[in-house]
């Protein structure tokens, strides 16, 4: 029996050793080069931006908070000096609902282990029985990076689905983003802090920062609480902005929730952004009413 137990221990430990060594090697390599980056102008944000603009320079990813926008920017800038950042920033961006994506969210945290300055904190947030998920995700990312040539940290625009607005879904979305048991949800301290960090970093590094307020269905906009509308104006004052929030209005131009564009609008929004960029490429002076100009 001793022989069997010893052999099992040898097998398990050598297996874990090989897995750990490969994991460390992959982790070490990709923490230096998490992105395949050749762009001086980059787009950052969450799924709203990911679906908004058809370009390889679109590094936005779903459920991505300002914290990871910030660390992504740091990594991307390290690999290739960034000139211009377009950052997705809408009314919901300051909502406390984003904190869910910062604390123990299985689907979100493992993506950013490589660029998180405190990876051990990420590990600590996992229950022992769920740690395998985190590790498995790293291998999945490594596999995609090596075999499929994706970025190690997930990034890149996605083609939106062909759907249209559903008012019930839209109201649910509003509830999720702006309300907590019928009361207006509080602002997110972390989101605000990392937003300020991005602004500060761009100033220090002389990076042109432009915010993008992505299109929302008129009924969605009408339901945003006034506290959030006011805070948004206050917080973004003085920062160049491409305000597309009123640029689309047809139900088929949005997905069911009313805050993501549908495939029907993708070419239109891509064209709007390209036009905006060509107008501003030389001097980067933002016109007073951008949305009026680019609609032409």
């Amino acid at each position, binding site marked *: *029996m001793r*022989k*069997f137990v010893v*052999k*099992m221990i040898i*097998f398990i430990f050598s*297996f874990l050793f*090989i*897995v750990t060594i490969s994991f460390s090697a992959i982790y070490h390599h990709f923490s230096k080069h998490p992105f395949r980056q050749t762009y001086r102008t980059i787009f950052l944000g969450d799924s709203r931006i990911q679906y908004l603009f058809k370009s390889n320079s679109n590094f936005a990813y779903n459920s991505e908070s300002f914290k990871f926008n910030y660390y992504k920017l740091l990594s991307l800038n390290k690999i290739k000096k960034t000139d211009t950042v377009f950052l997705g920033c809408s009314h919901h961006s300051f909502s406390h609902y984003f904190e869910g994506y910062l604390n123990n969210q299985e689907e979100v945290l493992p993506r950013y282990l490589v660029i998180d300055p405190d990876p051990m904190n990420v590990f600590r947030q996992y229950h022992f*029985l769920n740690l*395998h*998920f985190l590790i*498995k995700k790293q*291998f*999945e990312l490594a596999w995609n990076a090596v075999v499929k040539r994706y970025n190690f940290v997930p990034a890149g625009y996605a083609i939106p689905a062909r759907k249209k607005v559903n008012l019930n879904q839209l109201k649910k979305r509003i509830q999720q983003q702006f309300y907590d048991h019928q009361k207006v949800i509080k602002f997110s301290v972390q989101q605000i802090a990392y937003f300020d960090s991005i602004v500060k970093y761009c100033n220090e590094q002389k990076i042109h920062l432009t915010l993008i307020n992505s299109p929302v269905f008129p009924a969605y906009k009408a339901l945003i609480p006034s506290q959030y509308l006011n805070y948004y104006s206050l917080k973004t004052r003085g920062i160049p902005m491409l305000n597309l929030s009123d640029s689309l209005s047809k139900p088929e131009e949005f997905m069911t929730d009313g805050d993501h564009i549908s495939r029907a609008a993708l070419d239109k929004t891509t064209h709007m952004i390209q036009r905006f960029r060509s107008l501003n490429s030389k001097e980067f002076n933002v016109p007073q009413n951008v949305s009026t100009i680019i609609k032409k």
Partner: protein
Amino acid sequence: MLFNSFEFLIFLPIVFLLYWFVFNKSLKNQNILILVASYFFYGWWSIPFLYLLIGITIIDYYLAFEIENPVIKTSKFWLALSVILNLGILGIFKYYNFFIDQFQVGFNQLGIHASLPILKIGLPIGISFYIFHGLSYLIDVYRKQQTTVKSLIDYGVFVSFFPLLVAGPIERANHLLPQVQKNRTFNYAQAVAGSRLILWGLFKKVVVADTISKVVDSIYSNYQTHDAYTLILCAVLFSFQIYGDFSGYSDIALGTAKLFGFELLSNFKFPYFSRNIAEFWRRWHVSLSSWFRDYLYIPLGGSKLGKYISIRNTFIIFLVSGFWHGANWTFIVWGLIHALGFLPSLLLNRNRKFTTNVVAQNTILPSILELFQMIQTFVFVTIAWIYFRAKDIETANQYIKKIILSIIEQPNQFLGKPGITDPNGVINALWYVVPVIVFDWIFRKNERELFANIPTQTLRWILYFIIGLFIAFYFGTKSSFIYFQF
């Protein structure tokens, strides 16, 4: 607790070490440990249903003493009572709502609008398996093929031994009970064989079956929108999904039992290498087929009372076997299809062909004839699986109709499909089938000694590492086993 869960990866080594290092001084202690571990294993899923398991165990234990009564009339009475009781419990939990639905439909057709009460509780996991364990013991006691067990602990271990508790194999009293009552010593070769079975079983379940299931589920959920080519491949994939799922479970169960010094009945003997339906049923879910053969087919007269009775009995066991799988007409039709497939072999007296050898017994590859026979059997079994998998008969009929009509109406489109893009992932999923076929073919001569014929230890360890890596990568989805629902 699922075999493919982290909880089980912690539970198994703890019980193993306690069993061989702490409780190894006496058989009684080892059996107590197994019983407690088994109840813990079952209770992890549901405490209330654990009480049901314990209750049935105690009742059957005492009923057996009454059945052992030398007065035949009394013995028969107690046997009848115990069979009614066991099947009654099974019937209430598993079939009550089905029969109520059927009555409701019948009454509605007669214009009677009665609202019959339905049962709003779940199905206890493994109930069909542990009820059948108990019944085999009681019937064997009645037939004087088994003496009653004096220790309730031993009987409890026989009914509830955790590796086989929720999805079999369905053990026989005269096979497992002597092992429970006999001193067990650690056997290195047995433990190694057990570990290999666990590894391969996990691979089949976690890597193959669970990956394929994603593709199969998505295609079945909107089969109307898919072409014939995709539907055919999806049916083939389901054949391998259910095989990987159930035979994977059985391998883990057999392997785990080996670690504790038990040899369970084989449940799968590479069924997709069968050369006719009769051989398929000697290789697929063997413990269930042999249970029905011994406790239903033979008592009904088997094949000894002429062709007509033999055919009748064949249909009965296939229909009952289908119904055993679940309270749905789809399972009954699935059983009926197999009965019809079995009929030609029975009529031509070929049902006992291929009983002693495996395909390509002395060669590396099968002959053209064997290959043709295997493909023919596989195609038949795959068509029957469509009824097994579909949510109702109408869906299965439409599924098959869609395949046939697409081929007839657009033969060129059908033939031209392979090789183009794979939007549903069926071609990708087929790659997962390849290692199963290759390894099963290599091991086909002995389902209990996997990897034993790999020539060198280095090669074996490399294989273990590769398989282990795949399992680690795919582990953690916590998907249940298909046969848990039965």
